[in-house]
C-alpha cells in the first residue's frame, strides 16, 4: 500500500489553499485550516488506500474543516483586500473577460450548504473527477453530480442577483 509522500503537501499547497478559502470564505481562516490540516497529516505516516494523493489531502482538509467548523464560524470575517484579487492565467489562454475576483467567488461558495460546498470545491476548485470527489467525500458519484449541479446554480444566482441586487447590472464575466 502506497505511503503518502509528505512533499505532496507542498506540491498541492496552492490547490489546498484555494479549497480551504472556498470552504471558509476567508483567506485568513483558510491559512489556519491548511496549517491545521498539515499538522494532522504530518502527525504520523499516512497510507493511501488506493486513492490519489490529492483526493486524500482533500479528505483530510474536509475532515479538519468539519472538526474546526464551530470555532472558525465564530471568528469575524475580514474585509477583502487587494491580496484577494485573482489574476487570470495567461498560460491557459483563458477568457480575458472572465475576471471575477477570487474573494467574490469563494465568498459565494462559502455561503452554500456544507454538502453542496464540498462537492463544488472538490470538483471545480480542486479539480477532482466525480469519482475521486465521491471517494474523498464518502458518497456516490450520482450524489456528487446532483450536489454539484445545485451548487453551481446557487453560486451563479448569488453572483448574478445576490449581494449585488439593486446595485446595477449583474457582474460581467
Amino acid at each position: 500500500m502506497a505511503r503518502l509522500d509528505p512533499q505532496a503537501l507542498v506540491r498541492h499547497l496552492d490547490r489546498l489553499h484555494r479549497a480551504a478559502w472556498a470552504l471558509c470564505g476567508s483567506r485568513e481562516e483558510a491559512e489556519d485550516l491548511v496549517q491545521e490540516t498539515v499538522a494532522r497529516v504530518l502527525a504520523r505516516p499516512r497510507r493511501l488506500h488506493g486513492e490519489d494523493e490529492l483526493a486524500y489531502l482533500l479528505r483530510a482538509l474536509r475532515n479538519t474543516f468539519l472538526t474546526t467548523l464551530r470555532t472558525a464560524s465564530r471568528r469575524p470575517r475580514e474585509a477583502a483586500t487587494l491580496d484577494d484579487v485573482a489574476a487570470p492565467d495567461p498560460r491557459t489562454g483563458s477568457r480575458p473577460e472572465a475576471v471575477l475576483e477570487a474573494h467574490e467567488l469563494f465568498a459565494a461558495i462559502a455561503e452554500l450548504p456544507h454538502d453542496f460546498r464540498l462537492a463544488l470545491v472538490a470538483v471545480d476548485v480542486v479539480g477532482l473527477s466525480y469519482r475521486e470527489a465521491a471517494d474523498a467525500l464518502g458518497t456516490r458519484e450520482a450524489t456528487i453530480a446532483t450536489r454539484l449541479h445545485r451548487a453551481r446554480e446557487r453560486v451563479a444566482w448569488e453572483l448574478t442577483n445576490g449581494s449585488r441586487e439593486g446595485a446595477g447590472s449583474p457582474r460581467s464575466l
Partner: protein
Amino acid sequence: MQPEHNEIEPERVAAIVAAIRDVSVPAPERLRRTVEEAVAQAERRPRGSRGRGFRAPARSRWRVPALAGAALGALALVLVIGTVLLVSDGGSPAPPTAREAAAVALRPATSAAPANAGYEALDASIGGTRFPDWSEGSAGGWRASGARTDQVAGRDVRTVFYENDRGARIGYAIAAAPALPAAGGRVVNRGGVPMRIYDLDGATAVVWLRNGQTCIVAGRGVAAETLLERASASST
C-alpha cells in the same frame, strides 16, 4: 442565498464555473514557507515514529518579525506575466527584459508586508539586496502594504508594495542577479546613478541597478518624479 434560482441561464452558470476553475491565486508565501518547514521536519523524523512534530502557529503569530525573517524556501510560485513566457521546450528561459519584469510591480500583492528590520530596511531581500523602509525619516510616508514573489521567464523577482496616506501605491521589484537587459525608455541620472524611465500603458516605471541587481519602482497615477525620488532614496 435565495432558493429561487431557476432563471439562471445555463451559459451564465457555465461562465461562473469557468471563472472558478480559472482562479489561480497561489498560497501566501508565508504559508508555503511554514508548510515546507513542517514537511522537512516530518521527513527528518525517524521512520515510523509518531507524534505531532509540527505545531501550526497561530495566524497572529505570523505577524511578528521573527517568522517574517524565516529562511526563504523553494518558491513554487509560477505566475507568468503576459508575454513573458518564453521558455522553449527543454531549454533555458530567455532572460526577461527590465520592462517585462516591471509589469510585476503593478500586479496585486499576494502576501503580507515584510516587517521593519531597522536601519530603514525591511525584513525582505533578494540576493542580499534589501527592500527599504520608507515609512519614516526623509523618505517618510510610504508604508509597506504587501508583497509578492514571481518567476518571470525563469528569473526570481520579489516585490514589496508601498502606500501613502493619499492611497497612492508603488511597487518596488528586485530581480535576482544578474542584471536584466534594459533598452528604450528615457534615461536620467540621479546622484550618479543612471535610471531608465518607461511608460507602461499608462503606468510609469523607473529601472536602475543596485549591487548588480535590477531594481524597479512602478506605479499608476504616480508621477515619474516621485518614482525617481523613491529610486534615488535607495539607489545604493
